[in-house]
């Protein structure tokens, strides 16, 4: 029995194809960078293996180093100032402003200038596509909403969803193989994909929602509505710029003995209204944190109530961890990599199906591999220039993307071009590891350096293997330049 009429299936397929083609490239960029972003802490640690590491938190040392940083003539005060506590993934303490930071040595002295630009490069790509913040947030969030459209139309366009539930004809890059890959990953992954779409849409759209609520409720202003979601900050005056971190820390540990201390933010650090807020993750809860607030002398003011308040508030504060898989430890991150890559593959294979379906090939067939296989290459090159030479590499990434997208037009054979990009990516990753070893010497082999280097080498091997296998088995090489 087919519950879907032929007309509905046909129109849904039209809708799915149109939206998929319009969004495929953008979705691919966001999904692949998002998958990498799961490991932003590991990447940040890898960027700077020379920083001193320790999991211990000595309140007096933390207080002394934070106050030293805050009063240093080299520090530019910004609205928010940070003391980031060590954790198992990133076992180093950091003091920072909104724009720069320093690691803290084990003895409390200020250590190396903190570099997290590679990590920022990929989180920035995922969150804002390197566009100005507001525009980027809205665009990426809109893509999340449109992912819902793709999921809905995809289901309605799939009349044999039960019959084909486990069918997988692997045909290399052939259309049947691509279709089965696309449908099996898309259908079974749908609950996760919906979760990612809805939570991803949250960040850029919440401000619009608050604005519309405020204008729809008599007598309400945006602040009134905002404070329903983001509890009001304490109103303090005449707060001295010396911070009783140790006293406050002891209180936090007393209030939340099992909590995982994330960081301390001094809000309004550049004014006399400043106050301290400790972010502490609570065991078993998905909410990002409970926040403990103190004046600058370390007097306890209360919590923000993110984990103690209404369920709706907790749901909103769970969005980040659900979206990025930052719960349940490293194993959850690995699952999220699998699930994130599945959405990436769904994005790419959808366009592949459309390209394979056509009776002819044209420039689009040549440009598309430049997006799919050019992106890992561009990421590799930009990571190289950023991590090894500290060259701001946003422009390098996008420049490489343009080169990769246009390169196929000169090669004129997408299958050959795809293999070339795979080989180049493999070479780039090997060079990145070699340059890293050369730059950081023995530090490259510490726990901060070797795990990511090993992953990079494995990825390089995978790219070489894919290129080799394609060379051996693909009949596509025969396509030639039949223009």
């Amino acid at each position: 029995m087919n519950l879907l009429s032929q007309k509905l299936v046909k129109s849904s397929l039209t809708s799915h194809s149109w939206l998929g083609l319009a969004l495929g490239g953008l979705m691919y960029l966001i999904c692949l960078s998002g998958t990498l972003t799961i490991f932003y802490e590991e990447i940040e640690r890898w960027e700077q293996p020379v920083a001193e590491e320790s999991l211990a938190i000595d309140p007096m040392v933390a207080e002394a180093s934070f106050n030293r940083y805050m009063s240093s003539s080299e520090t530019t005060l910004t609205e928010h100032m940070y003391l980031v506590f060590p954790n198992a993934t990133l076992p180093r303490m950091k003091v920072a402003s909104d724009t720069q930071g320093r690691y803290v040595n084990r003895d409390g002295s200020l250590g190396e200038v903190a570099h997290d630009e590679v990590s920022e490069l990929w989180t920035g790509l995922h969150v804002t596509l390197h566009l100005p913040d507001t525009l980027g947030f809205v665009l990426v969030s809109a893509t999340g909403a449109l992912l819902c459209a793709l999921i809905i139309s995809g289901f309605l366009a799939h009349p044999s969803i039960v019959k084909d539930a486990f069918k997988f004809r692997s045909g290399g890059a052939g259309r049947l193989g691509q279709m089965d890959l696309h449908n099996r990953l898309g259908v079974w992954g749908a609950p996760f994909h919906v979760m990612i779409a809805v939570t991803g849409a949250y960040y850029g759209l919440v401000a619009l929602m608050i604005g519309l609520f405020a204008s729809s409720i008599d007598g309400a202003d945006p602040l009134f509505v905002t404070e329903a979601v983001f509890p009001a900050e304490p109103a303090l005056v005449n707060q001295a710029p010396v911070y009783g971190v140790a006293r406050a820390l002891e209180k936090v540990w007393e209030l939340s003995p099992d909590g995982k201390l994330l960081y301390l933010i001094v809000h309004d650090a550049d004014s006399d209204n400043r106050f301290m807020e400790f972010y502490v993750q609570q065991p078993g809860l998905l909410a990002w944190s409970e926040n403990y607030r103190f004046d600058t002398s370390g007097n306890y003011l209360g919590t923000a109530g993110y984990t103690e308040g209404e369920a709706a508030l907790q749901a909103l504060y769970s969005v980040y961890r659900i979206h990025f898989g930052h719960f349940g430890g490293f194993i959850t991150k690995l699952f999220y990599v699998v699930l994130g890559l599945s959405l990436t593959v769904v994005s790419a294979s959808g366009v592949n199906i459309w390209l394979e379906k056509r009776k002819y090939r044209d420039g689009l067939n040549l440009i598309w591999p430049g997006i799919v296989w050019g992106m890992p290459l561009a990421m590799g090159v930009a990571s190289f220039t950023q991590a090894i030479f500290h060259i701001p590499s946003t422009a390098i990434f996008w420049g490489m993307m343009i080169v990769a997208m246009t390169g196929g037009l000169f090669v004129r054979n997408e299958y050959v071009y795809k293999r070339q990009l795979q080989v180049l990516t493999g070479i780039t990753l090997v060079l990145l590891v070699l340059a890293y070893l050369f730059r950081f010497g023995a530090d490259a082999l510490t726990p901060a350096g070797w795990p990511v280097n090993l992953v990079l080498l494995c990825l390089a091997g995978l790219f070489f293997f894919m290129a080799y296998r394609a060379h051996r088995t693909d009949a596509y090489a025969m396509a030639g330049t039949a223009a």
Partner: protein
Amino acid sequence: MLAGLIALAISITASGLVYYSWRRSGNAWAAAAGWLLAFGSAFAWVRALGAEFGVSYAIIIFTCLVWAAVALNVEATGAAGQSATRPLQAMHWPGARDWGRHGGLFLLSVPVAGVVALMLSVALVLPLPWSLLHKLTAAIFLYPVLWGALSAWICAQDKLARPALVCLGLAAVSALLLFI
């Protein structure tokens, strides 16, 4: 630990039964038992990891196990279905009429649908007898789904006039509910 292993065993059994039912051409008992266990596994995961982590893990593990079953079922068919000898030809650029149609479809399905869905989601939750926080939360999670559904419907239409009129109507009704 033990509770986690039990939850994992239930998820494996659930995915196994769903796969078995498919292999047996829709064995209804196996399918029903599989899906029942799949939902039941959520309780086991909740018991093992707590409510929030547990529900997430029930979904994630079941999805990954089913994909493993799909991978087990792979049929090697070579590169069938693709033509290696398709001619490479010059890019076909759409004419002004096509640009107009695609441009209109984009405007309607992305920004217009976004604005209409925003208004509609707020208009739908505002009259509910809930606290402001609950209304806001419901609207925040409803909005992308409504936007997606509206976009999918717009893109499925042959002509643009009908979705344009529907969007206009929905916006007008929402505006009435919101501002009058």
